[in-house]
């Protein structure tokens, strides 16, 4: 019975769309499909009735693809499926790489810290200067550097702190002595602790202090005035550094803070 109806239905379908219509074969084929495939004989009257109406859709047990493939030609369909699969894998790899980069950028911080601690680099990459280097170093006479001095005091510390000379002319490789003066004008003993700074920063790595008064608590009694010496030298390798060719002025700046009980100034070095 079904076979009798099909040819008629087919003719009706083909009236609407000419066979040569490019887009049509799919639609027409899908419409024709139910007729070409004879349904299971068990479905009975409901199927026949729907086929007459032309809205029969074969219940498919297979999983439908989410997206229809563009190609209709069965030969290119396989190729398109391959392309889609390849694109998906490429996309997965790219996404994984992006996530990996993000993770690496977060991991870089502790890793770099670890690397610096093991190799000792990171801001103060200077070959270690031992005291025997001072013995053997030869002053570079032709390179005169002016060292100026600056003194600062934290607001809460009431000392009078100032350098005793505004500048001094040294050459690399020669040890030099400079003085600061501090006075405690209050009526109570005050403990101060100082740190220093050298400008320009790159020259700071050549500025070596043999002895000074920084990083240790210094106690001044009421109305006491003391001289604070700084014994330093500039590394002779300063003269050979191409980046320091234009550096003729180095400023040494000390800052005093009030030392409170139990407070520790961070030890210089890599923290």
């Amino acid at each position: 019975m079904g076979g009798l109806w099909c040819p008629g239905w087919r003719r009706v379908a083909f009236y609407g769309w000419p066979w040569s219509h490019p887009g049509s074969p799919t639609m027409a084929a899908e419409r024709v499909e139910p007729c070409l495939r004879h349904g299971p004989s068990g479905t009975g009257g409901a199927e026949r009735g729907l086929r007459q109406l032309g809205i029969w859709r074969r219940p498919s047990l297979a999983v439908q693809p989410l997206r229809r493939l563009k190609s209709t030609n069965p030969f290119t369909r396989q190729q398109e499926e391959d392309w889609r699969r390849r694109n998906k894998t490429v996309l997965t790899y790219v996404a994984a790489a992006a996530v990996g980069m993000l993770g690496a950028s977060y991991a870089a911080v502790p890793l770099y810290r670890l690397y610096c601690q093991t190799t000792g680099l990171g801001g103060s990459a200077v070959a270690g200067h031992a005291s025997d280097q001072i013995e053997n170093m030869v002053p570079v006479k032709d390179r005169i550097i002016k060292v100026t001095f600056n003194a600062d005091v934290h607001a809460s510390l009431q000392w009078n702190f100032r350098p005793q000379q505004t500048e001094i002319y040294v050459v690399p490789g020669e040890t030099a002595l400079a003085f600061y003066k501090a006075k405690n004008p209050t009526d109570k003993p005050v403990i101060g602790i100082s740190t220093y700074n050298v400008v320009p920063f790159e020259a700071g790595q050549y500025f070596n202090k043999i002895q000074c008064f920084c990083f240790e608590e210094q106690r001044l009694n009421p109305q006491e005035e003391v001289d604070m010496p700084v014994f330093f030298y500039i590394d002779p390798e300063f003269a050979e550094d191409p980046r320091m060719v234009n550096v003729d002025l180095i400023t040494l700046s000390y800052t005093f803070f009030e030392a409170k009980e139990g407070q520790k100034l961070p030890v210089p070095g890599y923290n």
Partner: protein
Amino acid sequence: MSTAMNFGSKSFQPRAPDKGSFPLDHFGECKSFKEKFMKCLRDNNFENALCRNESKEYLECRMERQLMAQEPLEKLGFGDLKDGQSARN
């Protein structure tokens, strides 16, 4: 304290002095040597090379009075002064 805010440049890392900190000269025992050194600096237009004798004497004063650890002068960069006892120009 380095306050440069540029992200890429190296910041200043203060280093501890090689031989530690000078004890304070509370009693001014070496003040006269210091005054001599400062006068020498002022006379010579703050050139350190001409006043190295005075600085050596100041440090020797400190070492004698236990205000500084005893060190041979070569280790402090005064090796040439020890022999000749003459200030270089």
